[in-house]
């Protein structure tokens, strides 16, 4: 079933400026995990903000679970369904205590105090931050703060979470933990994930990769297929995972090898087979 449906979506910031994107058609199914790639200014963050009515389309429509995002009376239903996590964890934490911050959205929605308590504990456990619930945000590392921000979203029990470069400001360990949390939310709770990222290794872990360039969808397929278009990706200023590039270089040198490889272990087993 389609959870998110964008139809002929166009957007520009004001009447004089150029269109960020035009006639964009994209759908996302309930429960899928998709990555959106594209170099800076290709319109991916702007697109993301259309998914929970932070921005409204100039032309076309966005439907979330059948609700039009232009319907102002349903705006909080939409925002509860589609949560959003941003790049800088510092700028999305509101309260001075972790659990207070996770409770923020629920307090806004007018949930009864007892239920808030339960859902906050649940959300903090889901992201593995329960034992830090009484800490103040500035005592936490970047990765921990980002997980708190994610907990603040999943406390709303959304159907979909849009993450706009959530790991861009994190160190490698924090990045890995945040990625594991995101994958867990998708696997265990069936939450639809839309991950905007610059890291090809992260995109390779998703079930679907969408490549955007200058406001258009360039590629939209499984990661293996997408990353086999190495030359096209390089043209639009993107990379491919290191292993894919490695295999591709081998192929160029005349080795007979399948280039649909994005996984390190897969790569090593194929190399072993070749060498023996």
């Amino acid at each position, binding site marked *: 079933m389609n959870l998110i449906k964008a139809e002929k979506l166009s957007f520009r910031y004001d009447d004089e400026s150029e269109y960020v994107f035009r006639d964009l058609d994209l759908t996302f199914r309930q429960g899928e995990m998709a990555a959106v790639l594209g170099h800076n200014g290709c319109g991916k963050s702007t697109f993301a903000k259309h998914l929970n009515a932070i921005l409204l389309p100039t032309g076309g429509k966005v439907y979330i679970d059948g609700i039009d995002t232009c319907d102002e009376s349903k705006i909080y239903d939409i925002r509860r369904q589609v949560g959003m996590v941003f790049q800088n964890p510092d*700028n999305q934490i509101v309260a001075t205590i972790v659990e207070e911050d996770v409770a923020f959205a629920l307090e806004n*929605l007018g949930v009864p105090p007892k239920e808030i308590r339960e859902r906050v504990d649940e959300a903090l456990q889901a992201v593995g931050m329960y034992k830090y619930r009484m800490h103040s945000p500035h005592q936490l590392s970047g990765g921990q703060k980002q997980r708190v921000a994610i907990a603040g979203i999943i406390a709303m029990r959304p159907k979909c979470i849009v993450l706009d470069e959530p790991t861009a400001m994190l160190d490698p360990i924090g990045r890995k933990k945040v990625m594991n949390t995101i994958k867990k939310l998708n696997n265990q709770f069936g939450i639809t994930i839309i991950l905007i990222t610059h890291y090809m290794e992260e995109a390779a872990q998703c079930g679907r990769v969408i490549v955007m360039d200058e406001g258009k969808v360039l590629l939209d397929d499984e990661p293996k297929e997408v990353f086999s278009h190495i030359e096209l990706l390089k043209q639009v200023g993107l990379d491919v995972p290191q292993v894919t590039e490695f295999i591709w270089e081998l192929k160029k040198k005349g080795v007979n090898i399948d280039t649909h490889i994005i996984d390190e272990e897969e790569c090593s087993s194929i190399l072993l087979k070749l060498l023996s």
Partner: protein
Amino acid sequence: MFRDITLGQYFPGNSIVHRLDPRFKIIMTVIFIVTLFIGQSAVSLELGGVFCVMAIVLSRIPWKLILKSLKPIVLILVITSLLNLFFIKDGLPVFEWRFIKITETGINTSVFMVVRIALLIAGTSLLTYTTSPIMLTDAIESLLSPLKAVRFPVHDLAMMMTIALRFVPTLIEETDKIMSAQKARGVDLDGGKIMDRIRSVVPIIIPLFVSAVRRAGELATAMECRCYRGGVGRTKMRSLKFGPADIIALLISIYFLAAVIFVNAKL
């Protein structure tokens, strides 16, 4: 340089004073201030002193901290006592030399004023020592809530206070970073004449402001994403509750106020 600033000078603990409902603590502090100011005689001041010392002992706040809170007002205390000492001319003269005349009333008043101000500061800083900033904000929101009837934006005010508290450490960290960045570019922040020093603040303040405004924009978007729409229809996870201990504490402070009023009436 900014690392040692702690906001609201909260001293964590689990004493009975710490555990009192913050709303009651604010009300008791107000009653305490009134008690000090309506007191006319040494006896009423002693009553205030007993109450204050009792609270400090119960709070298990080290005396050193209480003295530290008095440090910034030492100058005020000295000036007050000197003014009272030299400018009160009535009463029995104790010491007279040319135009200087010190009287018994002068000495009494100056001691009285100094003790009164010291008690005032010690008592009110006990409130911030034993109550965390977030509890204070909650209490202020709760105490001001009757003002909602006259459309005073109580929730918005509390929200602003919370966000300000939340961003103090973040902005301090940022200031540190900007200072290092500017030093790396050759800005001299420490030396020079007073005017040079004032001027050298500019390359710190401007980037700090730009970044704070950008942060505010991002925070606003993040809050909207989490369905923020002001105070209407909002619930709270943690609500303030008062128990018998709070009422007893309040009654004690009222008792002291009544005692001072009684002493006054007898004069």
